[in-house]
């Protein structure tokens, strides 16, 4: 495993700047998740590290080695894609062994056998090793395709939304499994997703991307509790953070234009009278959709609340975040 360092990487496609002067250090043994909406530059960053794309400017170092001019094979990276692509005519065992049989690696048969066995164990597919790939469920297929990357022991694993094609239950299961495997192997992982739950639950470090720029980089808790700007604040948190003009409640620091108020930081029972528009019962939580002087506010309440649409509820902010006219946070 190795540290991966990007310094001032830029990538253009025609007039579009996909990645804009990005500098990013992926520490050895870290699970880094790049989070951002479609078109933010997540996948391009991944492809630049893998060597599938070449940067217009900047340097990429893997384990201290400048790799800008190296081919994907020379860079010693393993990729897992969103759509699992297994060889349908091969068994699970043959699929897992395939990367090790590549002429560059020349792995001895007994090592192949040991590695395939170990990875199958970790991924809990040992009992399916002799099944054809086509006889597997979707979740098993995706585990095999992850396994095909894991047998390799590369400098870094690059994963591009590997769970997004799976159903919710399986996704939740594999989230835990991936994190466990990464910790167990001490692997360095760069993982791309637009799913904030995946970012928060798996990452040691989250990088939030917007329009090709790295806006913030840090542990999930830091990103959630201390976002540098409004984009990052809105990226994490369900329901989304409420954004309100500071004039609504008054009492804001100098220069503040917008107040960001997490749903759990809307204090209920005193303050300004808001009107309940809708009560949403999600089972484990109940959301209140409120309106106050023309502004929509979402907050959480007691699961079995007696509040109904039309009711009045006094509210005031607590632990609000403040942002200036440019959307940057005022500390």
């Amino acid at each position, binding site marked *: 495993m190795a540290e991966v360092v990007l310094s001032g990487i830029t990538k253009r496609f025609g007039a579009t700047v996909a990645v804009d002067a990005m500098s990013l250090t992926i520490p050895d043994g870290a699970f880094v998740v790049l989070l951002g909406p479609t078109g933010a530059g997540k996948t391009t960053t991944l492809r630049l590290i893998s060597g599938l794309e070449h940067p217009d400017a900047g340097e990429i170092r893997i384990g201290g080695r400048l790799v800008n001019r190296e081919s994907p094979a020379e860079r010693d990276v393993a990729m897992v894609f969103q759509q699992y692509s297994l060889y349908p005519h091969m068994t699970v065992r043959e699929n897992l062994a395939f990367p090790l049989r590549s002429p560059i690696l020349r792995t001895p048969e007994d090592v192949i056998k040991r590695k395939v066995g170990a990875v199958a164990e970790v991924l809990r597919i040992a009992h399916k090793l002799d099944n054809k790939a086509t006889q597997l469920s979707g979740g098993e297929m995706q585990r095999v395709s992850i396994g095909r990357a894991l047998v390799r022991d590369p400098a870094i694993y690059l994963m591009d939304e590997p769970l997004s094609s799976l159903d*919710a239950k399986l996704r939740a299961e594999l989230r*835990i499994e991936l994190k466990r495997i990464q910790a167990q192997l001490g692997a360095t992982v760069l993982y791309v997703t637009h799913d904030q739950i995946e970012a928060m639950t798996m990452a040691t470090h989250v990088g939030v991307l917007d329009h090709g720029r790295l806006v913030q980089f840090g542990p999930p808790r830091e990103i959630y509790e201390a976002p540098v700007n409004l984009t990052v604040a809105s990226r994490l948190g369900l329901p989304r953070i409420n954004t309100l003009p500071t004039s609504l409640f008054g009492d804001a620091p100098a220069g503040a234009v917008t107040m960001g108020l997490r749903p759990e930081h809307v204090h209920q029972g005193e303050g300004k009278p808001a009107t309940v528009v809708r009560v*949403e*019962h999600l089972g484990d939580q109940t959301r209140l959709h409120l309106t106050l002087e023309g502004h929509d506010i979402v907050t959480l309440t007691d699961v*079995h609340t007696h509040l109904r649409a039309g009711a009045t509820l006094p509210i005031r902010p607590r632990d609000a975040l403040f942002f200036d006219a440019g959307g940057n946070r005022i500390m």
Partner: protein
Amino acid sequence: MAEIVVKNVRKEFGSFTAVQSSSFTVRDGEFFMLLGPSGCGKTTTLRMIAGLELPTSGEIWIDGEEVSQKRASQRDIAFVFQMFALYPHLNVRNNISYPLVSQGWSRAKVRAKVAEIAGILDITDILEKPVGGLSSGDRQRVALARAIVRDPKAFMMDEPLGALDAEFRERMAEELRALHDRMGATTVYVTHDQLEAMQMGDKIVVMNHGVIEQFGTPQDIYDWPATLFVADFIGSPSMNILRTDGAVAIGQREVRLGDAVIDVPEQLAETGGSVVLGVRPEHVALDDNAPCRGEVLATEYLGTTQIVTLSTAFGDVKMRTSSGTGIRVGERVGLTFDARTLSLFDAKTGKVLLSAANRGVLAHG
């Protein structure tokens, strides 16, 4: 707008029974969800209400009229599909006008109606645009406008948000529900996404293998599932299911997990077979002195809360707790369960056992 009553409706395709014998009532103005995994019969049920399929037996009443053998065109309902088909050669205005023009409305009336609907859906400024270049959200709004413009008795929606990405789906779900609150139109909505169903629905029917597992309000179904299938399907993470020892007698107020005695609501039924205990993740708490022990397998940070996965002798348990609680992987902890919220299920039939706590919900489900 109208009430829809489905009575003992059954649908067979050759030797395959898609819908066994469904009965439920959609009240006037309700947003009603048909929820279940693929192949459960939810879409077939919707298509029978719409008249796109005819039931093998049973009755369907719309607005007091039995329509089960009538054609779709005679039922006065509007259908919104997942893959919204717009007329590619017409602009937005003409797409929305089309149902009215084909019914012979005057041009002035059509113009006024389209303006009204465009206002409701906030698409007034794209009315003259061709549909080709629209974003997927705007396409969806145009498809909705075309369905709404006729003022039908009810709307049928088949996973209308299924093709959208997660973030956008969340926003469209909010928009759709707000639209419903303004119009109050009876809506039957098919989805496989339990969160979407909970979030938008006034009532939910949960289906599996052509059978209705449960019918009720989202919170009732979440709190008091009628079957193990519902307990697992609703909620993320699902309800925890733990193996218990021994049978259940009428009046019983506790079950055993190994050495631990777990208080449960008073049981109103008895069973000799094996019983499992159902507990929602937010009703599990840590207590160092509790006799029920577990080992922490994983923690997942979610902002204000975290999900902790534990291994116990009775099965894995997921708990939802404040992210301020410091918990380490590998740690051994004691677990307690909120007695008022627990359900017991017959492990063989998968049905919940009647208790003093779930009696009220099950009586009308």
